[in-house]
C-alpha cells in the first residue's frame, strides 16, 4: 500500500507562478553524492517539463518557451527529520525566484515549477540548497524558442 500526500504551494515571484509539490516516494535512484548515515541525502534531481504521479515527464536540458512551464524535481532519501530545502532559480546568474519546500521523514519527493514567458529565454540553473546554504546539486538547462 502506498501512501501519498500532496502539498501544493504556489509562489509568485519575478518570473511568474511557481509551484511546489511535496510527496513521499519509493522511487529509487542513485544518490548524486554519498552522505553519512542520518544525514539528509538528495537521491535524484532532474529538470522536466512536468510531473505526473510523482514522476518527472520529459526530462531534458532544453525546454521550449512554448511549453509554458518547467519543473525542477528532487527526491530525498533518507530524510532524518522534518526540514526544508530551497530551489533557487537563476536566469543568467541573476536570482529569479526561490521556492521553499518542506521535507518529511523518511523520504520525500518534491518539485518546484515556473511559468515561462518570452523574456525567460536563455540559460538557467537551479540550485538545490538546505536552510544552512549547503548546495546539494546544481541543475543547468536552457529555455529556447
Amino acid at each position, binding site marked *: 500500500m502506498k501512501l501519498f500526500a500532496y502539498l501544493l504551494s504556489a509562489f509568485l515571484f519575478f518570473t511568474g507562478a511557481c509551484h511546489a509539490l511535496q510527496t513521499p516516494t519509493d522511487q529509487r535512484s542513485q544518490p548524486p553524492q554519498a552522505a553519512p548515515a542520518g544525514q539528509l541525502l538528495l537521491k535524484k534531481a532532474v529538470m522536466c517539463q512536468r510531473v505526473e504521479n510523482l514522476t518527472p515527464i520529459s526530462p531534458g536540458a*532544453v525546454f521550449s518557451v512554448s511549453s509554458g512551464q518547467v519543473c525542477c524535481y528532487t527526491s530525498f532519501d533518507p530524510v532524518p527529520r522534518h526540514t526544508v530545502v530551497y530551489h533557487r532559480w537563476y536566469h543568467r546568474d541573476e536570482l529569479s525566484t526561490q521556492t521553499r519546500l518542506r521535507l518529511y521523514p523518511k523520504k520525500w519527493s518534491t518539485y518546484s515549477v515556473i511559468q515561462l514567458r518570452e523574456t525567460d529565454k536563455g540559460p538557467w540553473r537551479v540550485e538545490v540548497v538546505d536552510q544552512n546554504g549547503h548546495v546539494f546539486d546544481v541543475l543547468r538547462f536552457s529555455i*529556447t524558442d
Partner: protein
Amino acid sequence: MGGLLTFISTIRWQDIVDVLINSYILLRVYILFQGTNAFRVLVGVTSLWLAQELAASLGLILTSWAIRGITAAAAIIIIVVFRNEIRSVLQVRNIKTFLWGFPAREQRTPVDIITDSVFQMAQKRIGALLVFPGNQALGEVVHGGIPWNGQVSNEMLLSIFWPKGPVHDGAAIVRGEQIVEVGALLPLTHRQDLPSEYGTRHRAAAGLAEAADALVVVVSEERGKVSVAKGRDLTPVADGQELSQAIKRHLNMPEISPVHQRKRERLKFASAGFVSFLIISGIWLGFTRGQDTIIALNVPIEYVHRPASYDILDTSVDEARLQLFGSSALIRSIGPEQVAVRIDLSKATEGRNAFAITQDDVILPPGISLNRIKPSTLEVTLDIPTTRQIPVQVDWTSRLPKDMDLTDVSLSPTSVSVTGGSTTLAKVDTIYTCPVRLDSLPKSGRTTAEIVLSPPSLKLSPSSTGLVTIHYRLVKSRTPQHQ
C-alpha cells in the same frame, strides 16, 4: 607702474630662458647668413609676412590672401634657389662656428689688395702705373684706354702689368673696387727737376698728377721702387702701410685700425643680438600674453601609478572636459597629445576611491591656462586580481527539431579557470558558451563551442582553453511539444 610690476611678476624663469634661447638662435642665423643673398631674400620674406599680418589686422582680405600666397611661394623659392648657398653655410663650417663662433670674415679692401699687389710687382721688378681719379674728369688728359671693368684682384693686376702683356705699358685706372680701363696713355711732364733715374713711367705719373687731381702710383721696373704722384709731388713710398695711407687719404677713406675694426664688429653683433632679443620678445608677448581665445576639449583620463596588487575595476568617467584659454596662435596649435589628465592612483586602496581633478592633474602646453574642468571629481574602483574555477554552461538557442528532446548534456571541460578582479569574479557563477543553435544538431553526438567571458575584464587562465566540447543526446519526445 603697478601694471608693469604685475606683468613682471607673472614672468616665469622658463619664459626668460625661452626668449633667450630663441634670441640666440635668431642671432646665429644672422651671423651665419649675413652677407649672403639668401639672407637678403629672407629679410624680404619676413617683411612680406609682417605686411600680411598687418593687412589681415586691417581687414584687407584680398591683400592679406595675396601676400600670404606670395610669402609661401617665396619661402619655397628661397630653399630651391639658394640651396647651394644654404648648404655651404650649414656644411662647411665646423660645429663651433655653427653654434657659437663668430666667423672671421675677410676684411681685405681693394686698397689692401692694390697695396699688396703693387709691392709684389715691385719685388718682381714689374713696372706698373695705377691711376686713382679725383673729382676731375680724366677724359681730356688720358687717352687710348681700353675698357676693362674688372673687379680689383691681385691676379688681375699682375696679369695686366705682366711685361709680355699687350697693355702692360699703359696705366690702369681704378675707380672704387673696379679697374675701369687699362693701357691708358698719360701725359708726360715737362719738368726738368725730376731725378735722372726717373724714366718715362715716372714722367707720365707726374704729368697726370700735374694735369688733374688724380693720384698715380708708379712702380719702377728698373729699381723695383714704388712712388706716388699727387699734384706736383712725386714721393717714394717705403712700405705698404704708407702706400695704403696715401691712397686712403686721396680717396677720403677713414683710417680704421684692426682693433677699431674688431670693436665695430662686436658692436655690430651686440646690436644684432639686441634686435634679435626685441623681435623674439615681441613674438613671445604676442604668443603668450594674448589671452583672447577659449576652447573646450574632451580629454581621455589616464590613470597612472596604480598599485601593482590592484586592478581597475571601474571608473565613473573616462574623459574630462577642459576649458582652456590662451592666445589664439597657441590655442590653434594645440595637439591632442599635448593635453592630458593624469590621475595618480598611488594612494588608492581596494574598493571605491574618490578623487578631485585639480590643476596639478592636468598637463598643458606652455602658455595655455586651465579655466574649468568637468567633472571636478571622479571615482575609481580598484580590485585585487584573483583566479577562480567557474562552471561552464551551454547557451542553447533556436528551436529543437520537432518531437525531439535534448538530454544528457555533458561538457569537457566542465569548468574553466578564470582570472579577474575578486569583486567581479564574486558575481560570476557561470561562464557561458557562445550561442549554440539547436536546429543545427542532426543527431546525438558532440560539438564544440567557444567560451564567452563577460564582463570583458575577465580572462581565461593560461591552463584553460577557450573551447568546450559538448556531448549531447537527442531522443524522441514522449510528449508532443506545444508549438
